[in-house]
């Protein structure tokens, strides 16, 4: 089922959680709403579900306006971060809940309920816990039961609010792979909220990057990773080195130093942020080199194929902390450049991405 979000705004007190958000979720995809905490992604999900009502804007589900319908009528499956399983019911009864609360004439027979719940238990591979209570299950198992419970009512769309947020790293990885497989089987339009970029990149068909109540970028994980559209997108996805300065011809002037950049046209004197991924950043061993920003090596990690070099900026600390850089170079370069801890070097970006520095686009990383 398609989901359309048109011009949604939502304010809590003086805090603008969503600011005129419009989105179109195509049918059958697994979409990630990705953003830092407090960016409004959960609010957006709750507005789509009908658990929260927007101040302005419309929600269109499957071509019909659902703005004024409440959560019961929208037929969405919602999975909560902390599972929200009913503690006093067995796993079986939890999953059967959605079927049992139907009006009498729509309610399936006891036999059908039993069959359906067992089918769902098999789907989430937890048939053997049917008679246990939620408190007897592990976190990962609980979340799978919560998912089965949401699927029992045959929702038109599945909404998951930080579904793996409360789980430990290993279970989380397993479960998100499992979710992907499950989605490929069921093809039910799903939206999940996450602040974990790795999760979003790995699981989703499409990522909606949200920041400060607004959509920053929409794209496939590949697009989002390789072509970040905004300064925020650049700094939020993956690790990145950041240089702030002014445009001066083909260079970005950072303090007294300069970095050559290749793409984009800016007016001279424009304040900009330049980004460079660790693997696109180069170390120049000669600290007297004309190009580059000077830094000193703090640590060299890994001596295999790829070495990671951590550096700090030379000179004054800005806003109480020294700027930190990360560079990935072939392990052999450590030898050939003769790098060692404490050494003064210069950094240049091979593929510098430059964005105008509007105050407030600062990365919340």
């Amino acid at each position, binding site marked *: 089922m398609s989901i359309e979000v048109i011009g949604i705004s939502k304010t809590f007190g003086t805090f603008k959680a969503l600011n005129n958000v419009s989105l179109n979720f195509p049918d059958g995809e697994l979409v990630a709403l990705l953003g830092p905490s407090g960016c409004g992604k959960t609010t957006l999900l709750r507005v789509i*579900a009908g*658990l929260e009502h927007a101040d302005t804007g419309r929600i269109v589900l499957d071509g019909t306006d659902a703005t004024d319908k*409440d*959560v*019961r009528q929208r*037929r*969405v*499956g*919602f999975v*909560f971060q*902390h599972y*929200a399983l*009913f*503690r*006093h*019911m*067995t796993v079986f009864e939890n999953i059967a*809940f*959605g079927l*049992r*609360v*139907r009006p009498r004439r729509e309610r399936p027979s006891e036999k059908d309920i039993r069959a359906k719940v067992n089918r769902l238990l098999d789907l989430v591979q937890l048939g053997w816990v049917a008679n*246990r*209570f*939620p*408190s*007897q299950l592990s976190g990962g198992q609980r979340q799978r039961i919560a998912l089965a*419970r*949401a699927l*029992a*009512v045959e929702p038109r769309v599945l909404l998951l609010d930080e579904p793996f947020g409360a789980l430990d790293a290993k279970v989380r990885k397993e479960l998100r792979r499992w979710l992907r497989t499950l989605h490929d089987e069921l093809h039910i339009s799903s939206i999940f909220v996450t602040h974990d970029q790795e999760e979003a990149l790995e699981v989703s068909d499409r990522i909606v990057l949200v920041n400060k109540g607004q959509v920053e970028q929409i794209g496939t994980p590949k697009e989002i990773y390789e072509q970040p559209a905004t300064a925020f997108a650049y700094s939020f996805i993956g690790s990145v080195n950041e240089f702030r300065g002014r445009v001066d011809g083909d260079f970005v002037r950072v303090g007294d130093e300069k970095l050559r950049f290749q793409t984009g046209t800016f007016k001279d004197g424009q304040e900009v942020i330049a980004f460079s991924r660790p693997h696109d950043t180069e170390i120049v061993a000669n600290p007297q080199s004309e190009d580059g920003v000077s830094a000193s090596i703090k640590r060299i990690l890994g001596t295999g194929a790829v070495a990671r070099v951590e550096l700090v900026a030379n000179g004054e600390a800005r806003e109480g902390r020294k700027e930190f850089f990360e560079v990935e170079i072939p392990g052999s370069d450590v030898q050939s450049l003769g790098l060692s801890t404490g050494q003064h070097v210069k950094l240049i970006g091979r593929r510098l991405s430059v964005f105008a520095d509007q105050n407030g686009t600062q990365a919340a990383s």
Partner: protein
Amino acid sequence: MSGVNKRVLPGFGLSLGFTLVYLSLIVLIPLSAVFLKTSTMSWDEFLNAVAAPRVVASYKLTFGASFLAAAINAVFGLLLAWGLTRYTFPGRKIVDALIDLPFALPTAVAGIALTAIYAKNGWIGALLEPLGIKIAFGPPGVLVALTFIGLPFVVRTVQPVLEDLETEYEEAAASLGATRWQAFQRVVFPTLFPALLTGFALAFARAVGEYGSVIFIAGNIPMVSEITPLIIITKLEQFDYKGATAVASVMLVISFVLLLVINGLQAWTARRTGRAI
């Protein structure tokens, strides 16, 4: 080395010993004195004391009114707790503090205040009088007094559970298609039920033992509005110590059995809802 202490928590012997001594001094020894004194009576004397029509009528009133009062408190205490935890309104803190007042008030004060209001010439009594409803100086008066003193027990046991019950559960129920009533009935209420039962038991136990507030409002008419604690006091005043302890021991046994039943009910629901496995 059989003396090695295998328990992780130290002080088991000390705390068990202390618990037993304390319980004995405060509860068991005084109560067993009641039974000891009673046991000096002959069987006929005992039956005469505890099964006299006037005494039997008082059991019915005491336990009946206590049960009813606890039931009323269970319903309205739940509503109050709900109102206090789920909504914010001006003066909420004050209302919250008022709940505890029946705890703090000397019961005689409560009795006098209630009588003043519910008597024929009182504020509420005067309104009910033309309708032919008489509260003070009769069994309804007993019920009012027992409801008054039992209220905080239900509110205070249910409140923390309600506070812990996140709205997420209701949201989950709603997203699965449950109506508000179904969400309450199938999700909220079963979660609250054990606390409600505890509150009910406490309110009931308190009401059974209540004396001070009831005697002012009850009118204390033999066979009609005389509670068992008053019978005991009356017997004491007539120096009928044996009779008093006999009635007291019957009361004790009934109370104990009832509380045991409620505890059993607690354990049963706990097992059925997965909290005690």
